[in-house]
């Protein structure tokens, strides 16, 4: 019986799948939710897609042994950049898109360089850039436009690609989320690049000595996470035809919870893209799905907290299980 499930339990995403099933079961049994309504709903899928596009690169950064919390400021920074460039100044939308993603690249580059060149932990480095970027966005928006909210009218093609609805209420960003997840899953699990990320997160010095270009790899990962955050902000501005200076801070904790529920080890070296993907869905269903239940929504944070702790406990025990010898040795010892 156990041996049938053993290969599954050894995978990094095992706990996230169990968490997801557990949460849905809990909502059905205790909350009296109708599964068709839940799975037909767009709210949690939209929420998951916005969160997931940031969670995947940040999670991969965590597998590589670093963390990026500056994404909390990069999301409003991304939406403000495109709104100021293409909305306030009326530049072509292409310029706005390139400018937004370039800002992400620059902030990611700064995060990466500071992490690689100093011994300051990336939590502190990105805490610094988080606060800096908040200041830049607030003061910059005020200086350039004199307002905290900027309007943006995107042309039809940009609206269709980044900010339209599929059907009555599903955002087009869901499509981007799935594509990004597939690309990253391929890169991380099937290429040499992915193996380097795991090696770097497992043991930075050994990886460097084995010839992995750790500095360059770290900088690339930071750039990807900042670009992804700017992209999510940009899609939001195009979707809602305006951008605000605030918001985005909630993403910091939400991404970390999704990533950890998804089976990524906080200290690096272990995790999977599919795990992060499922962890994000789990988090979205816990926080948004509660509206479909009879449960008072004020309980949602409690449920998130308990899910996180249970998932972490499961991750720990499954990881130990994965570390134990394979089936061959067990047969010999019994």
């Amino acid at each position, binding site marked *: 019986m156990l041996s049938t499930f053993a290969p599954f339990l050894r995978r990094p995403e095992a706990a996230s799948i169990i968490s997801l099933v557990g949460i849905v079961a809990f909502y059905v049994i205790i909350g009296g939710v109708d599964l068709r309504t839940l799975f037909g709903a767009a709210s949690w899928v939209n929420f998951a897609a916005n969160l997931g596009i940031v969670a995947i690169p940040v999670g991969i950064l965590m597998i590589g042994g670093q963390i990026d919390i500056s994404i909390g400021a990069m999301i409003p920074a991304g939406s403000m950049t495109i709104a100021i460039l293409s909305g306030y100044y009326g530049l072509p939308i292409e310029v706005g898109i390139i400018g937004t993603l370039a800002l992400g690249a620059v902030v990611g580059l700064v995060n990466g360089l500071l992490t690689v060149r100093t011994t300051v932990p990336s939590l502190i480095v990105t805490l610094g850039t988080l606060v800096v970027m908040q200041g830049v966005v607030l003061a910059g928006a005020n200086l350039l436009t004199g307002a905290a909210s900027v309007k943006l009218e995107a042309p039809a093609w940009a609206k269709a690609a980044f900010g339209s609805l599929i059907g009555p209420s599903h955002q087009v960003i869901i499509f981007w989320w799935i594509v990004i997840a597939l690309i990253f899953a391929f890169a991380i699990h099937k290429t040499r690049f992915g*193996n*380097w990320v795991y090696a770097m997160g497992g043991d930075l010095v050994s990886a460097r000595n084995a*010839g992995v270009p750790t500095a360059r790899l770290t900088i690339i990962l930071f750039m990807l996470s900042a670009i992804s955050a700017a992209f999510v902000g940009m899609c939001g501005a195009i979707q809602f035809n305006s951008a605000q200076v605030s918001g985005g801070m909630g993403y910091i904790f939400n991404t970390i919870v999704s990533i950890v529920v998804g089976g990524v080890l906080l200290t690096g070296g272990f995790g999977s893209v599919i795990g992060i993907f499922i962890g994000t869905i789990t988090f979205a269903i816990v926080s948004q799905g509660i509206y479909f239940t009879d449960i008072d929504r004020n309980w949602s944070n409690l449920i998130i907290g308990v899910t996180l702790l249970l998932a972490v406990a499961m991750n720990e025990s499954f990881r130990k299980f994965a*570390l134990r*010898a394979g089936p061959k040795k067990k047969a010999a010892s019994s």
Partner: protein
Amino acid sequence: MSANAPILALRNVNKSFGPIDVLHDINLEVRAGEVLCLLGDNGAGKSTLIRILSGVHQPTTGAIEMDGGQVSFPNPRAAADKGIATVHQFGGTFPLMSIGRSFFVGVEPTKGWGPFKVYDRKKANAIAVKAVQDFGITRIDDGDRLVGGLSGGERQSLAIARAVHFGARVLILDEPTAALGVKQAAHVLRIVNEAKRRGLAVIFITHQVMHAMAVGDHFAVLIRGAVAADFKKGEKSREQITDLMAGGETMADLEKSIDGYMSTHGGHPPPPAH
């Protein structure tokens, strides 16, 4: 075998960190198919010596020679490229990676072309498992197992097999048996012998004299940063080596003084100093 020229040699190497001299006038040689045991107590300078040999530190004065020509290792990568592989106490392996993946970190085999060049898991696993099994570790037969699930001895063996597979000529083993039980240590010593049989030069760092004597051809004792003794297999007994490592104050003397005290004090040991 030992008549040929040394692969790796240190000539009058000194190393100081600021005002602190750590190594004085170190002269060492190691030849192909020979195990050089570097013995010394904690703080004798063994670690610094390893770091010089593996390119982490550079000598303050003196020279490193390979195959008779002077070389310098500005970084660990340079030393590795010249065929010097260092295996640390805990293997320098990645506990949460599979055997196949960790074996090929940095040199992963791929198949396919262009952007679809994918990591060849089957090939990596097969090569890694075969390399370890060739060293007599037949219990490793699944390349997908995580390295952290292996025993300490198996992890050492994997690291040594990896170094040999990638063409190491000089193998530096830093206290490979220190954290291991008796059986596991015997395992690693067998692998050291196998590496030697294959013509590698092995520098075996330890403070366990028994382990050194089991595999060593040549011994150097390091005391306070200097080579206090340099001798061949069979020239000194275990007691003599232990005495040397203890820094001249012989263990026999120590035992004698305690025995003397006990005979005059009714069989009681001396009271603790404080």
